[in-house]
């Protein structure tokens, strides 16, 4: 008991403090203390919070009524017991008493006591504050049961969690669809279910101010509002503006004047048994661009409305929040739907574009197929045509390999076009024949149009004469990709030509012998040594003699021409001195000139030409003879020569186009000369013409024979070089010409790769000119 006596008790304080010498008036401070001492114990007793005094060992010294209730023990039972017995393991006296703070702490209240007041509250939490050494060495502890507060908190948390779950569930259901109609339907159904409302609907505000219910969920015993259109008066514009700003209306009782509903509106809602309603806006942000939502402006799209029909209803905050959040969800869904719609528009546009592109593509494919078909048909036709022709038609590439052959190749060589395709010319024609072709092939591949004759051997070992033309396939300005080759059988023509040549030769020869006899006999008669003739007889003899001479010339010229044309004549060209040629020609014609009283003037120049002297002499004498014949007595005939000029002369009027082409292309001339030397006698070079190269200027001399005769009309200048063409056919007889002289001249000059032409001024005379290559050119050939 010494322990108890040593401690002070709040209750015993009162007893202990009874003064021993009371008659003396107390000191004011003592009086205040006495008053306090009188007040504190009742306060201690009536305090709502539990108050205990514990000693340094943590044992109860005293406890008030509330503490006894809290711990479920009487005061007598508590005093002396350890505090830790009641406050569970979390409470450690040692720590609590050394580190006491003014902050309240939480401890768990154990219910080890058998006479626990409330058995349901097996575990309770207490909040305590500890004041160390509050009364001597006793600590003051205030405890408060906070279990109920905790429970309320937990209940609230639980409710909130439920709401979140509910909300998530609805949101999830809404989000599961992209179809606005379905979303709206889900929303009204779920809201109606959660709120246990009699009707939930979504009202859409239309641009003209009217509106209608577009989704509804309600109990079956109330009128349906679905698809019902509402007049504008029901929902005026100023209301719309308020809702657009986010106004929410919760009306517990539409008939309650505090609700502030207009009378007409009350009548209106009565139609649908509406007693209470909750309205939240569905607001949409208007955007100019879907991604630019931040700059949007809010517009009222519609309302989410819950109705209570059987009775008025007080709407709680949770219900309001749920409605608002779902309205937000609908708003999002609307934006998404718009985006989707926009997306669908884009998809639609793109699909249309793709369809169009596809159609174009298809058209293109069709066109191409058509073009290909046309091409195939065209190729087929070409093949049919080329195959039907009895000539060889081919395309040869730059590597001299066949790329196209017609059927005739098979008929001629026994090789199909497929077998020949890709073969080199040498493989198809054989080495010997190829050597004869090579020069021309190379010329064609250098861009020249080439024509020549050749002899080939067919599959039956028969020899055929062919005429070959190569036409270069020129790409761009100077790239030769290959050439087209056309080969036709001219064996029959050649045979006929040979027969003609032979015929002319035989006839000429056979004519010559009787002509000799006739000529000689007439001459002998004319001597008069076989008897004298009368004057008329002499005259007749003269006619016979002249005609015989003319006939002789004619036969000679026909034979000359035939020989040159048949190609039997080979010009033996060599360096000749032009001066000596001219002198020889003048000498040969001097007698005739004197006979015609013509002065021959020659201006020879010491120039070297590349020519067959005999033939050039023949040409010169021919031209001089013509000039003399067609000059008046007393006239002059000039024979002159012009040295080579740097530039090739312009082609004068009257020059033969053939010789023109020959002249215009020294390359061709070179080739021709080469070919003439290298090719066999039978592969005669004709007159290849070039279409590509510009005529290079090779030096050539010009011989001119000028007279002062009657002249030649311009339109006759070319014609006179053709056979039997004289300006006036009566001249022919008068002048004793054969009409073949100029033709022979032209042939001779062409064989020299020169050109010949006539210029004339009727009444003043004519100039016959021809060119010959100089030695300089000849050397380069």
């Amino acid at each position, binding site marked *: 008991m010494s322990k108890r006596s040593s401690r002070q008790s709040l209750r015993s304080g009162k007893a202990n403090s009874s003064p021993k010498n009371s008659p003396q008036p107390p000191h004011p401070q003592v009086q205040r203390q006495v008053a306090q001492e009188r007040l504190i114990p009742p306060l201690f007793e009536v305090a709502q919070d539990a108050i205990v005094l514990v000693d340094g060992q943590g044992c109860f010294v005293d406890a008030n009524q509330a503490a006894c209730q809290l711990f479920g023990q009487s005061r007598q039972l508590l005093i002396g017991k350890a505090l830790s017995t009641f406050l569970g393991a979390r409470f450690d006296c040692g720590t609590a008493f050394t580190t006491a703070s003014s902050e309240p702490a939480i401890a768990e209240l154990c219910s080890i006591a058998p006479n626990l007041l409330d058995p349901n509250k097996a575990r309770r939490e207490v909040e305590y504050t500890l004041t160390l050494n509050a009364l001597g060495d006793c600590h003051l502890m205030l405890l408060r049961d906070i279990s109920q507060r905790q429970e309320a908190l937990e209940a609230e948390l639980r409710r909130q969690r439920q709401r979140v779950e509910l909300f998530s569930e609805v949101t999830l259901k809404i989000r599961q669809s992209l179809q606005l109609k379905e979303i709206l339907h889900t929303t009204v159904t779920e809201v109606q279910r959660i709120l246990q409302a009699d009707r939930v609907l979504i009202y859409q505000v239309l641009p003209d101010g009217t509106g209608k219910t577009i989704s509804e969920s309600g109990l079956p015993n109330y009128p349906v509002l679905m698809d019902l259109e509402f007049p504008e008066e029901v929902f005026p514009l100023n209301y719309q503006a308020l809702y657009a700003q986010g106004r929410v209306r919760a009306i517990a009782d539409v008939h309650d004047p505090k609700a502030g509903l207009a009378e007409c509106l009350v009548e209106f809602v009565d139609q649908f048994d509406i007693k209470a309603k909750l309205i939240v806006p569905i607001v949409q942000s208007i955007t100019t661009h879907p991604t630019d939502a931040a700059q949007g402006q809010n517009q009222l799209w519609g309302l989410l409305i819950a109705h209570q029909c059987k009775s008025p209803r007080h709407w709680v905050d949770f219900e309001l929040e749920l409605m608002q959040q779902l309205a937000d969800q609908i708003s999002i869904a609307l934006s998404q739907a718009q985006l989707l719609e926009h997306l669908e528009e884009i998809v639609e546009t793109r699909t249309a574009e793709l369809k169009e592109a596809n159609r174009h593509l298809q058209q293109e494919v069709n066109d191409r197929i058509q073009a290909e078909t046309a091409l195939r048909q065209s190729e087929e036709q070409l093949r049919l045509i080329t195959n039907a022709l009895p000539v060889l038609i081919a395309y040869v590439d730059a590597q001299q390999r066949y790329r196209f052959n017609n059927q005739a190749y098979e008929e001629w060589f026994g090789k199909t076009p497929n077998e020949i395709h890709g073969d080199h010319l040498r493989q198809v024609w054989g080495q010997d024949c190829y050597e004869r072709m090579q020069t021309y092939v190379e010329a064609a591949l250098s861009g020249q149009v080439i024509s020549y004759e050749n002899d080939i051997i067919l599959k039956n070992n028969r020899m055929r004469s062919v005429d070959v033309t190569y036409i270069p396939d020129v790409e761009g300005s100077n790239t030769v990709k290959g050439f087209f080759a056309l080969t036709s059988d001219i064996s029959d023509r050649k045979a006929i030509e040979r027969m003609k040549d032979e015929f002319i030769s035989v006839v*000429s*020869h056979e004519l*010559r*012998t009787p002509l*000799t006899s006739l000529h*000689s006999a007439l001459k*002998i008669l004319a001597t008069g040594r076989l008897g004298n003739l009368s004057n008329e007889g002499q005259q007749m003899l003269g006619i016979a003699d002249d005609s015989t001479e003319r006939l002789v010339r004619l036969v000679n010229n026909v*034979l000359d021409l035939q020989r040159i044309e048949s190609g039997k004549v080979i010009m033996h060209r060599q360096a000749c001195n032009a001066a000596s040629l001219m002198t020889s020609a003048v000498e040969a014609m001097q007698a005739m000139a004197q006979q015609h009283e013509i002065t021959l003037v020659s201006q020879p120049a010491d120039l070297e030409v590349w020519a067959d002297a005999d033939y050039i002499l023949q040409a010169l004498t021919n031209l001089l003879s013509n000039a003399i014949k067609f000059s008046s007595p007393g006239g002059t005939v000039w024979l002159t020569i012009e040295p080579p000029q740097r530039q090739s002369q312009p082609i004068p009027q009257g020059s033969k186009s053939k010789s023109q082409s020959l002249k215009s292309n020294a390359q061709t001339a070179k080739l021709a000369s080469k070919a003439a030397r290298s090719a066999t006698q039978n592969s005669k070079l004709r007159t290849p013409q070039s279409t590509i190269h510009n005529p290079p200027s090779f030096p050539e001399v010009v011989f001119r024979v000028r007279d002062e005769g009657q002249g030649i009309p311009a339109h006759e200048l070319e014609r006179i070089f053709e056979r039997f063409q004289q300006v006036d056919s009566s001249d022919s007889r008068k002048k004793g010409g054969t009409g073949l002289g100029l033709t022979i001249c032209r042939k001779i000059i062409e064989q020299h790769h020169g050109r010949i032409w006539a210029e004339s001024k009727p009444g003043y005379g004519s100039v016959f000119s021809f060119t010959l290559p100089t030695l300089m050119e000849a050397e380069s050939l």
Partner: protein
Amino acid sequence: MTSRRILIIDDEETIQTVVQFGIRMAAGWEVLTAGSGPQGIHTAQTGQPDVILLDVMMPEMDGIATFRALQSHAETKQIPVIFLTAKAQTAEKRQFNDLGVSGVITKPFNSLDLPEQIARILHW
């Protein structure tokens, strides 16, 4: 002008005649005639003319063969031969010259001019 003996070998009788007439008339030379190669060779051997006028185109033995035969005989080898030809062309003249003939006279000719032509060719 010294008298000469000419042999004309031609299968054409009229030619023989006009040649004979012309030469006799123009120069007064003696003219022997033969109508074929073999006959001409024989006449040449026996007659020993100063020049032989030989026609090129003759049946059977032509002028070229006759010329070669004349060349092969010692007694006719040295006799100059002038071809008479209807083939008046340069190329043929060259060919004949290459054979070794002394000259070529082209038909048709005036037989009265023959002595002059022969004299010029043989530089008489």
